[in-house]
């Protein structure tokens, strides 16, 4: 059974209008009927443009956002209707890593205090063992234990992100939601953090929901990928299947737009036009149809059907894989360097 099962999850926010005096209340459907599964030890990448609802979904899973409808089953228990005891258990078994490592750490606490606080609150180890466990956690993420007395301000961005990961690991979680956790880091440091996550995941059998806009990293790190557009999952499946034979035109456009370090490959001559429309005013039918180069008359009227090919799901009227430029199908690194 899956560690995490999400069924028809909806998260709505009131946008404007109070509902009083005849002002109609407007709702933003940030997450609009999402169903997903995540098994223990599995890494699921969640990608999409900004405003697609991927962070809201990640937070709703951890009960950090209110759930408007649907179910989030963690270990078989529905957290949407969970009691305080259930939620407390969720807090002990899940953790989140944030995008901005400086903003996510208390600047007035030393990183040792930050880690000790989690251990104390969640009663993970006996008080006399907290010190030793903090050292252990720091070593686990590749930091020297002497750094425990330092404050975040005197650490580099990469070091702070390692502290953020150590804090997430302090609860010995079974599920981690990592929200754009390498987006703010330099390339040379990004690789170090990705490698750390890969190693820890294999060692601890962690399930990771990896929210990112960088598709190249997702392809490298994740087992499966889900593509989100305006609150809905438009395509989901094993990473290789989705990246080599995308079925949804939005996925194909995202893959095509990944800048690759191949000097011989030009920019797409006709990049995907426009930007996602406001979630306050969703297009009718398929939400992607105003930007879609394959749109047909019916797309603006009916919701697209969901097709399944093996473990690959997608919601589109098209029934065949979409063509990609040749270098994508090869799935090979494009820069043939000779040293």
């Amino acid at each position, binding site marked *: 059974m899956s560690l995490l099962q999400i069924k028809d999850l909806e998260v709505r926010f009131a946008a404007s209008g109070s509902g009083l005096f005849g002002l109609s209340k407007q709702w933003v459907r940030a997450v609009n009927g999402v169903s997903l599964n995540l098994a223990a030890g599995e890494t699921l990448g969640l990608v999409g443009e900004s405003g697609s609802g991927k962070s809201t979904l990640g937070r709703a899973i951890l009960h950090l956002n209110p759930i408007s409808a649907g179910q989030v089953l963690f270990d078989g228990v529905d957290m949407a209707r969970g009691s305080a005891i259930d939620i407390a258990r969720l807090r002990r078994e899940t953790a989140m890593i944030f995008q901005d490592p400086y903003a996510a750490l208390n600047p007035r606490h030393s990183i040792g205090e930050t880690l000790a606080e989690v251990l104390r609150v969640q009663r993970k180890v006996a008080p006399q063992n907290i010190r030793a466990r903090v050292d252990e956690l720091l070593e686990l993420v590749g930091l020297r234990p002497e750094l425990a007395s330092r404050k975040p301000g005197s650490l580099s961005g990469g070091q702070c992100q390692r502290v953020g990961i150590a804090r997430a690991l302090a609860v010995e979680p079974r599920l981690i939601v990592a929200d754009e956790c390498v987006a703010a880091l330099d390339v040379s*440091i990004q690789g170090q953090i990705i490698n750390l996550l890969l190693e820890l995941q294999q060692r601890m059998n962690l399930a990771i929901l990896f929210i990112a806009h960088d598709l190249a990293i997702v392809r490298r790190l994740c087992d499966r990928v889900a593509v989100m557009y305006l609150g809905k999952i438009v395509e989901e499946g094993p990473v290789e299947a989705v990246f080599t034979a995308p079925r949804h035109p939005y996925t194909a456009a995202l893959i095509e737009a990944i800048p690759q*370090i191949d000097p011989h490959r030009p920019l797409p001559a006709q990049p995907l036009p426009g930007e996602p429309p406001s979630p306050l005013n969703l297009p009718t039918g398929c939400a992607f149809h105003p930007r879609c180069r394959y749109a047909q008359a019916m797309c603006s009227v009916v919701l697209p059907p969901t097709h399944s090919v093996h473990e690959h799901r997608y919601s589109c009227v098209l029934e065949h894989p979409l063509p990609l430029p040749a270098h994508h199908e090869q799935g090979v690194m494009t*820069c043939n360097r000779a040293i």
Partner: protein
Amino acid sequence: MSLLQVRDLSVIADNGGHALTLVDRVSFDLAEGEILGLVGESGSGKTLACRGLMRLLPSPNLRVQGGTVHLAGQDLLRLDEAGMRAVRGGQLGMIFQNPSSHLDPLMRIGEQIAEGIRLHQGASKKDARRQAIDVLRQVGIPDPQARVDNYPHEFSGGMRQRAMIAVALGCNPKVLIADEPTTALDVTVQAQILRLLLDLRDRRGLSIIMITHDLGVVAQSCDSIAVMYAGRLCEHGSKYELLAQPRHPYTAGLIDCQPAHSSGHALLRTIPGQPPLLDALPGGCRFNPRCPQVGALCTELLPEGARVACHYPLGGRP
């Protein structure tokens, strides 16, 4: 002769007595219609070098020291402030990473474009507005006649970046400095903006310096690449030679640590350690503590060289 010639440009920070060299003797050329990618990690000095050549340093503690910056034969570092102001926003335009914080939220988009046109070209109000509409059309804003009267908050992120490009283009600059112009944007919008910059180059012969940390962006849109590390230029060449056969170990490392478009859960290659602090630079080559192939000279002598600043460059002959 090249349009822009930068020679030995240094930027110094005065910190109460002791001076810190943030940008150390940077030299490069930019030809007409060329797009140069200036690549480096945060703190490598790529933005400061460009702000230095525009004499637009963000703090009074910073100053340009030595060197020359020739734009169309004129040394910018010898101009007086009034002369420099005519160049900035005239022949030399700049756009930034975050358009929201560089557009005036209380001023209509059209007025922000027209302001520069009136200031630099002495155009009438009516004429400046007509030109503003024209330049909005050139940067791909739909319905520019109506959009010219919008405020920045009425534009989406990608449209705001287009609007900022329009402000910079208002006075027909020869050189556009683009500081991380697509970093804050989604990949699909990033592709649109890069496409626009390339089209502007083709249509107007605009030269562009693109400051970025993303080698993928550089590979797709630039002609030549200059790589900076800890305040110094370490490699400079055409994108074809530099990406296919990097000579500096740092460039090679940067290319290797891209999450390559290959699959599988193999570990990524990385550059160990982190960039040095500029007040505690290692002796010799600044990259030597992280370099996989340190030789005898590397800890002794700062390497020089226009194509590659390395004592033992990759791929044979120096």
